[in-house]
């Protein structure tokens, strides 16, 4: 599967990627975007199967990215990896169509639990 990682922090994109590899998802193809705008471009050109996005980013929040995608008719699978995990944010994410909500700090096991139903076993 083709997975798009969206985070304004390059360090965090790398950490998520490393944890996904440790969780057994190394065989999937990963692309990265450093902002919501970059993500929209990448989604249009790369057509990922899954988007894993930060919430709190400059210019466009992750939830606004998801809302924009859905308003454009995109059905790409989408989930959040973020530093905040209030009930309100989880509800907002779920209502907007997010399939998972992982709060930082996370372990490879956390990613495995949330993503295994989507990414399955080895590709």
């Amino acid at each position: 599967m083709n997975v798009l990682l969206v985070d304004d922090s390059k360090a965090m994109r790398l950490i998520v990627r490393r944890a996904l590899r440790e969780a057994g998802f190394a065989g999937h193809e990963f692309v990265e975007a450093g902002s919501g705008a970059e993500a929209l471009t990448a989604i249009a050109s790369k057509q990922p199967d899954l988007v894993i996005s930060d919430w709190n980013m400059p210019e466009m929040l992750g939830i606004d990215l998801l809302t924009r995608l859905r308003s454009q008719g995109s059905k790409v699978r989408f989930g959040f990896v973020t530093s905040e995990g209030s009930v309100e944010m989880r509800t907002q994410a779920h209502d907007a169509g997010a399939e998972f909500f992982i709060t930082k700090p996370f372990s490879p096991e956390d990613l495995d639990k949330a993503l295994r139903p989507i990414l399955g076993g080895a590709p």
Partner: protein
Amino acid sequence: MNALASLNVETLEGLVSTATEAMLGLSFSLTTPKVERDQATHDATRSVSVQIGDAATLLVITADEESGQRLGSAMFACPVSELDPGMLDDALGELANIVAGQVKVCLGIKSPLGLPRVLAESPLQSGSPMPWRTALLQTQQGEILLRVTVTGSDEGVQS
């Protein structure tokens, strides 16, 4: 007892270690100030803040250059020689972001986190806002030394 009062240095130690152990395999413990390096962190070679609640409530992490490089090296999984200043700010900022998210939960703050902001000088030096709680933390071998401070008032914080 209000929420701020419950956020002691041991809690800060735990929050930082939880973040770094899960993602980097690094644990931090409280340390006592050693004059030279403590002064170095106080001189704020690298400081990043994240607004947690109202404008006065900030999480600030400060590192000397050497500690910032080692943290960056761990986060980017590369040698120090491959790091640029932007990567060092990014690494410290992301740690501050994660710890701030946990501090926000501890304090029962509802408003969203701000974005990590690189500081030209430590707010501990400028004197505003007033430091509220500071933990000096180091890794087991003392390779990384961080000053973690929560500043602020009781405004906007659940009691």
